[in-house]
């Protein structure tokens, strides 16, 4: 059991204000993903929860106990670093067992625990190897093994997949999802800038921008009702079209958000007209990039498209699938 509660959390390095009044309630067993562009403070937020950065003001509670000044090792957390941070001079066995060694456990118990974790992560054949003799995926598993072996209540992942190649990344993503299913009571907090990781792994996503929490919600909540134009533009691929001007005014909004898949296209008539600039045909779907008087608009068509670059195109947003935003960028009801 590990509920985490952040209240008005602030972090500043001198005059640079990194985290601004972060409020967050994380319930035990949740898989939370922090997502945002680089420099938004998501890693800093994770490191503050970990205890590697101290808190400038505000309260951080784990299990209803204020842990602002508790050292990392006493918070019941484990962290998987972006670089894995394996100890290069120690074997896989020693790497995994280091935390237990620090707890002063007897050797036999350490051996038993390490072997259990190694078995779970298919690391048993590599226990005597040094990290340099492992592949990227194996190093990643050792890093996760170090977290598991301590029996931590909270797992923190700092962009753990960013060093893997694309194929391995998909596979490891699935392994992490499986790991989470196997540990339903463990809270996991995961930092990424990759929205696919966020959408696929998270119970709830926390979207951060410039040190502020923009929106917290399940992946579908964020997709279906983004709280503001930033979240609208950040979640979903390709990006949501944010149209200002006449088409938005027609919906009584400052900005009209329409996802590429929510257009009906026609060669004859529609709400917005433009010229196809460029097409991407992927087989399962096709993307059309259309120049209009209101800016570049991306449209997704299922299957193959009947348009070629240079064609005139007319597009109408599907009713009920549009998002209306006010002048301040906030969602209108």
């Amino acid at each position: 059991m590990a509920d985490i509660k952040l209240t008005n959390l602030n972090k500043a390095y001198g005059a640079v204000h990194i985290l601004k009044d972060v409020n967050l309630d994380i319930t035990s067993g949740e898989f939370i993903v922090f997502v945002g562009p680089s420099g938004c403070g998501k890693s800093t937020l994770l490191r503050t929860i970990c205890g590697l950065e101290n808190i400038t003001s505000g309260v951080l509670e784990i299990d209803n106990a204020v842990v602002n000044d508790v050292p990392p090792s006493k918070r019941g957390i484990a962290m998987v670093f972006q670089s894995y941070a394996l100890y290069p001079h120690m074997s896989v066995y020693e790497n995994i067992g280091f935390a237990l060694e620090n707890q002063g456990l007897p050797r036999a118990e350490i051996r038993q625990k390490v072997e259990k974790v190694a078995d779970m992560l298919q690391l048993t054949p590599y226990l005597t190897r040094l990290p340099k003799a492992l592949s990227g995926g194996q190093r990643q598993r050792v890093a996760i093994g170090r977290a598991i072996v301590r029996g931590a209540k909270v797992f923190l992942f700092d962009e753990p997949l960013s060093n893997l190649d694309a194929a391995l990344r998909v596979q490891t993503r699935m392994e992490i999802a499986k790991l989470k299913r196997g540990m339903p009571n463990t809270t996991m907090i995961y930092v990424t800038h990759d929205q696919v990781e966020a959408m696929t792994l998270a119970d709830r996503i926390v979207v951060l921008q410039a040190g502020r929490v923009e929106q917290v919600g399940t992946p579908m909540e964020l997709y279906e009702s983004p709280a503001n134009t930033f979240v609208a533009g950040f979640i979903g691929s390709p990006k949501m079209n944010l149209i200002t001007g006449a088409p938005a005014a027609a919906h009584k909004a400052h900005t009209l958000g329409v996802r590429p898949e929510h257009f009906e296209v026609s060669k004859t008539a529609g709400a917005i007209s433009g010229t196809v600039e460029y097409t991407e045909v992927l087989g399962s779907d096709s993307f059309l990039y259309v120049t209009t008087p209101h800016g570049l608009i991306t449209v997704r068509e299922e299957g193959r498209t009947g348009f070629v670059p240079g064609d005139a195109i007319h597009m109408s947003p599907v009713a009920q699938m549009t998002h209306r935003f006010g002048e301040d960028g906030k969602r209108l009801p």
Partner: protein
Amino acid sequence: MLDRIRLEPSRFVLHLAVFIIVALWTLPTAGLLVSSLRDKDQIAVSGWWTALSTSEQRSQARTKGKADQVETDGKFVIAGNFFEGAGGHTSLSAWGTIVNKPDANAPGATVEIGEGQTLTVNADGSYVWTNANAFEDDRGRRIFYVSSVPPRFTTENYENVLFSQGIGRAFVNSLTVTIPATIIPILIAAFAAYALAWMKIPGRGFIIAVIVGLLVVPLQMSLIPLLKIYNASGFLSKTYLGIWLAHTGFGLPFAIYLLRSYIAGLPKDLIESAQVDGANDFKIFRRIILPLSFPALASFAIFQFLWVWNDLLVAMVFLGSESDKVVLTFQLNSLLGSRGGNWEILTASAFITIIVPLLVFFSLQRYFVRGLLAGSVKGG
């Protein structure tokens, strides 16, 4: 890959430079070693590069006098051997009776030398001098000869310097000074370097600045104040403890500076990971920092060892020149003065002096190899 590297001109220049440096360094060392193992008479007449070939030597000898003459068949004969007691390896290749013609006669030739006298000198140095009348001179006749001396290698020079010239004692003294004077600063500096690199201490920047400042303070400046303190303390002056502390003090700024920059360059994630794993500062230092800093520790160990081993000034000032505490450099220096002409002593002493630094260097140099951090962080 390998071909590309070999073809690069800059690589070629680098290899050439390395080769020249190695040659410049190795040749004199080899020369010193060879010379120190040669016979002392041979060192004096030929260079070390001729050590393996037989050398030609011009010398003179005197026959026995009238006391040894024997009368046989009406002739008086003096017989003997010039090389008696010389080891028997020398052989005579030519001889003569006049100083500027030592190669006038072949060995074994019998030569008339006037007044009814004949002289025969053989290759093995034996001679027969006959005379029709009795010999009257007390002293024998001088003979000039060219001899070929086969190469001779010996450890006599080493036995001599180690046990008779005080080098052995000085060697032990030097080790007694150098080993603790290397280890103590490393121990202190490693702790300090970790603290100054990774621990949040108030005034850390200031302390680092002071240490960098101390790097440029000449040690001569502190000799007199230190001596005064030592003399006042009573138990530090002219003792090994005193000189260990002195060398430690002189070595520390550089040691801390060197180790700190290395330790500060270790990946931050490793230290943070160890913190999350529940290791305290001492544990992080012992289990993470020390093993990973071994290359830096080894580099500094070499620097400090060589500096202390070769030091003369600090040793003279803090240890004094009493014969039982004299270090190698001091002993070598005094041998230079008193036995300056005895090359066999100087070469053997010099080689004993450099053998320890050589061993230290070769045993630690493998830690200079990069790649100790491989595998810890991404791409490694």
